[in-house]
């Protein structure tokens, strides 16, 4: 297993990711992107740094990212591609916390839409397609919001009732757990 990356340093461990994030937190930086074999870590002090404005603030490893993890605009991978390690979910405690929103969103009166399964979270029906929904959009009951892919089985995530999507709580291509909150919807009239 280690043969293909014989010259590259071994992939980082979960504990090392935590250590990197702690170091970042203690620094004065506003954002950083780290490319390592098989993994890219992007962190921002005030929310996710925009992809365009992400010159690596810290790059201990100068090797190009290979293979890149699905970016924010990605959609279901080709069937042959294995699910990449879910970097965003390395935030402890992983079992309960969705990634912190960029800014505080008022979710008062909202209903959570939870994941029907453990799997990969996809916001769009196919690579390159626009997402099913975006924050701020209104949806009708039963509208498809996302896909949770379990071993190539595509499970639709649908709106439990009509309303406005207030928040998308998981990142595209991330591993989501069973019952993890994926969307917050403010029901119509609420």
């Amino acid at each position, binding site marked *: 297993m280690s043969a293909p990356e014989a010259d590259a340093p*071994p992939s980082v461990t*979960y504990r090392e990711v935590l250590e990197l994030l702690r170091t970042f937190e203690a620094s004065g930086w506003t954002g950083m992107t780290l490319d390592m074999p098989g993994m890219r870590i992007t962190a921002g002090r005030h929310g996710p740094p925009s992809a365009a404005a992400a010159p690596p603030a810290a790059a201990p490893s100068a090797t190009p990212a290979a293979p890149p993890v699905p970016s924010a605009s990605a959609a279901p991978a080709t069937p042959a591609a*294995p699910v990449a390690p879910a970097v965003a979910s390395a935030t402890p405690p992983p*079992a309960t916390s969705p990634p912190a929103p960029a800014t505080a969103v008022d979710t008062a009166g909202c209903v959570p839409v939870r994941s029907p*399964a*453990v*799997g*990969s979270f996809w916001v769009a029906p196919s690579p390159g397609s626009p997402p099913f929904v975006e924050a701020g959009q209104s949806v009708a009951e039963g509208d498809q919001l996302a896909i949770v892919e379990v071993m190539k089985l595509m499970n639709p995530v649908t709106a439990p009732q009509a309303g406005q999507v207030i928040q998308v709580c998981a990142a595209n291509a991330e591993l989501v757990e*069973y*019952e993890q909150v994926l969307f917050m919807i403010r029901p119509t009239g609420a």
Partner: protein
Amino acid sequence: MTARPGPGTTGPETARTLRRVLIANRGEIAVRVIRACRQLGLETVVVVSTADRDGLPARLADRAICIGPPPATQSYLAIGSVLSAALGTGCDAVHPGYGFLSENPDFAAACVDAGLVFVGPSPAVVAQAGDKARARELAQATGIPVLSGSPILDSLEAACAAAGRLGYPVLIKAAAGGGGRGMSVVEDQAGLRARWSAAGSEAQSAFGDGRLYLERFIRRARHIEVQVLGDRHGSVVHLGERDCTLQRRHQKVVEESPAPDLAAGTRAAIRASGVAFAQALGLDSAGTVEFIYDTDTGEYAFLEFNARIQVEHPVTELVTGVDLVASQFRSAAGEPLALSQPDITLTGHAIEARITAEDPGRGFIPTPGTVTTWIPPNGPDIRVDTSCERGYVVSPYYDSLLAKIIAYGPDRDTAADRLSAALGQLQVAGVPTNTGFVRTAVDHPDFRAGQVSTDWIAARGLPDYLEKL
């Protein structure tokens, strides 16, 4: 951990570097595997159902992933969900524990297909061993004594005909079975007719395979099993035998190693049969060859093979000093066995008691509830494998095992005395347990004399205990 290239290493496929392990199980065995991983420097991800989110395994592992609701078919038995969790968290190996998916050949194959190391035998071995009828044919072909039985039977009529040839009483067994489920004794044709379809349904729901076969039933039997260990380079050793004769409804209650009161020649023959079977199977991990021993004739016969870690593995670990779970990881990583047969000696005696949330006074009915007091025993010769703690919820979805209490001693009597004392120390409240009953059994003159058979609890142990209550 990195595999050391051994003399038999044939290519890159045989050596894998393991870093992060998904534990596809719950309860005490999940805790046990996490402990082995820590000692080996492996990171751990444990899958949990919503019922186990706050349990000890979830807190001990580096990460816990919720994969589904409490029913096992939608969580611990859901192959796609377990694999998604493994791949999504960057694991490179999967340890299945016992039960659940541990002996499911489709799961073992799916792991390998997904590029994951299955910490158990290779899928072909799992498939061959998991089919009880095929395993028996293999034993027969290897020259190991086999209990007379039928092939797979596809109808009640075929079963009645086969039972007529075998002679009653007969045992109905699930082809994909284990752990006593889907297994029942019937005394005559009426009993067979009454039990047949329920046994099939139980097997179907427990293993996803409703096929059944029959076996001759031995009245005064002991259950003796040989722990075997193989590597991916063709070596197989045994680590002695265990005696698991004390059972209720075909579920083991007390296990020990070595087996008491066995003629030296018989003991050697049983061990040799275990190794011969494992070699014929091509076993490349830990496994257990189960035998039935007829106390009236002194004969033994092959029962089945389990291609996984056993619940009762600690007694073997205590008398051999070999960490079986760590050995599974080493074999899975392609390392050659660190021990050869002459290196393995059994020293002293170990006895394990399974503490379950079951009420002996009510036919060992598993009783869900919340554990409000939990004070386990301790001491230099006591090992407790458990995931129980105060606040632990015994749920109706899973087995009722609370803990395994294992005592070691230089000889059998000392080990039994220590186990009895440890059982006396154990304090549990909130759910009924079998502790008092197990202690009575361990102290019973029949057990101390090694004069018990698999029906002893039902015929003697339980009635004696209930009478004294």
